[in-house]
């Protein structure tokens, strides 16, 4: 059995009187693709941000690659030292830098020698198939191209853990299907552990080996994707109206 690569133990986060993440525990093994599935406001994005170190839990522990990064209500390791890549919901491409500039910033911050950077940038652009947009600004790219650029920027640092916060939510269905395939392919080829947050079970089913269902800040159920039976309720016309239950 694979050892866990990322582990959360009894993690809790409060905002005011409300527990947005409540006693959450789960783990993901190395190379696994885990989806956090749940409705808007259930705490899945906050969970992701806690793993990345962008927020601090009020209780619980988080471990990444065998190292405790969060405990006793404080971050023991800053985000830049956790070896994680994060794709934000609105992509967060730096608008004043070209695509190359966005990638170069990451490499320069990691103190990669200049002579290596051009090659790694070219490699990352090839991986996500936007070689022709190297000198374009984010504002000049289409939605799908921006997606790929954001993914390239995340992968170029060679993270061991990839965190994705509903990155496809604003894309049309055809483009989304294409990018989901590419994302799955890239994740498999690189063998990177990934945690993907979504409210769409089609996305979760397409990508993940295991799915964790979240509601009201709690993990209700976590199991292999094929073992979770997705029931369509009568008259439902959108994926959001479907129910799901474990077999």
């Amino acid at each position, binding site marked *: 059995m694979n050892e866990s690569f990322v582990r959360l133990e009894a993690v809790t986060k409060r905002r005011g009187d409300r527990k947005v993440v409540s006693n959450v525990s789960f783990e993901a093994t190395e190379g696994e693709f885990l989806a956090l599935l749940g409705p808007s406001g259930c705490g899945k994005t906050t969970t992701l941000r806690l793993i990345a170190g962008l927020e601090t839990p009020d209780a619980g522990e988080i471990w990444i690659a065998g190292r405790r990064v969060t405990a006793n209500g404080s971050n023991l390791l*800053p*985000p*830049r030292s956790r070896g994680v890549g994060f794709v934000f919901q*609105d992509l967060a491409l*730096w608008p004043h830098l070209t695509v190359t500039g966005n990638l170069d910033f990451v490499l320069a*911050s990691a103190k990669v020698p200049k002579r290596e950077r051009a090659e790694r940038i070219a490699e990352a652009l090839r991986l996500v198939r936007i070689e022709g947009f190297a000198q374009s600004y984010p504002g000049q790219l289409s939605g799908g191209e921006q997606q790929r650029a954001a993914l390239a920027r995340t992968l170029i640092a060679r993270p061991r853990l990839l965190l994705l916060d509903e990155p496809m939510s604003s894309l049309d269905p055809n483009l989304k299907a294409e990018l989901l395939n590419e994302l799955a392919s890239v994740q498999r080829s690189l063998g990177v552990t990934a945690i993907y947050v979504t409210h769409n079970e089609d996305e979760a089913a397409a990508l993940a080996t295991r799915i964790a269902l979240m509601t009201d800040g709690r993990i209700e159920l976590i199991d292999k994707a094929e073992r979770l039976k997705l029931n369509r309720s009568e008259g439902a016309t959108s994926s959001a109206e479907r129910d799901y239950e474990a077999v």
Partner: protein
Amino acid sequence: MLGISFIGADGGFSLVKYRHLLTDMRQRDLLFTSTLLGVGSALLATIIGAPLGLLLARADLRAKRFLRLALVVPLVIPPYILGLAWIYIGGSAGVVAQAFGRDLLSNWTYSLTGAVLVLGTSFYPLTMLATEAAARRIDAPLEEAALLVARPHRVLSRITLPLIAPSIAAAALLTFVLALSEFGVPGLLRVPVFTTEVFTTFAALYDFGGATALALPLLVVALIAGIAVKLLIGNRMITRPQSVRTGLPLALGGWRVLVIGVFGLALLWSVILPLGVLAREVGGFERIVTSLRESGSAIGNSVLLSTVGATLIVALGVLLGYGRARARMRLRGLVDLVLIVAFAVPSTVVGIGLISLWNRPGLLGDIYNSTAIIVVAYLARFVPVAALVLTASVRQIPISSEEAADVAGASWLRTFTRIVLPQIRTGLAAAWVVAFIFAFGELGATVLVTPPGESTLPVRIYTMIANTPASTVAALALMQAGIILVPLALFGILARNREGKA
């Protein structure tokens, strides 16, 4: 105005005035000094204002609302009031001279350096507010994405600062233009610049054409700066779905004491010290009462004319602003540019223009010979800025709001008064306060057009400085500052109450 500047001594077309402008050593010195004044003031305002703005936007400080309001005070007090305060501090009979028993600072006070110091202090709140607004608008994920790979100082230098740089630069340019157009401070501190030369050439020599020729470099600079501001404020950044979180907070930790000290120093330097010195110079409450009695007419004129002026400015400004916001014009950018340049035209130049236009027989002359001309001066100077402020307010109302009224059968006027105006009442109030403050402090145009026997408070102060006891002048200056701060304070309370209800 421009036409007259091309008329020679023989009544025919002549470029002699412009040739004189370009070849005369004194004119070149004026251009050099004026430019230095503008650049120096803009630099100083940026050095003080930008860090304060960034801290106001991000630092975990208490009483930010109070700090912001207090630090805006130098901007709302007319610059010549601050100039007067600094004369009382650094002049030959000032506080420093009295404390040390000899004149240490008057050479610095009455100099370009002194003028830069006063104007930089007066205008730094512009940069502070612009920086704060820009820093607040940055999507938090942009900085968070960088924090995942880089240290905070690198995120600040490579991500945050480049994103807010256009706003800081626009504020610096605006400060440059305002400093270049300033008349009161260089006049008080005896710094020879174009605005004072324009005033002297016209008021002392009645050389209309010469004064206009002198104004031309200022107009050209205003035009260039206006283009630059428009380009900087334009859409340089991508339009993207906005995150609900903006601006990463900055935990001060051990730096808190230092940061509080910095704010305290800024308050002391720009607000407490000048107002304190003015109060000290007054000497006692009786002097204020006496000054009130002696200058009651000027004070009354200022309050009445500024109130009427501000109301008319907002009335015209909202129509222009609405037209600008809703019109589907290709020349939209040009309209913005015209408004910016119109605001940047130096006050003395506006004054000369008004005289040439209104000083003639008939109805125009009747208006010219009454205090109504002062209101016209306020309109000429400040309608553009009200229009720009209110354009922004109108743009926040979705067009569908008016379309729904249109579909329901409402006339344009009914839609405008019952649908649009109620939704922009905060913007209207803000524009009125800004217009009142500017009008109340206006000097350069007013000093030229005020009819004989009448006066406003700024004109009275300016004309009394040379031959009236300092205590009287200081009392009037303090009264002016106090009257201006009242609408500002009221607006601050109003805004706070609205925030509390929201």
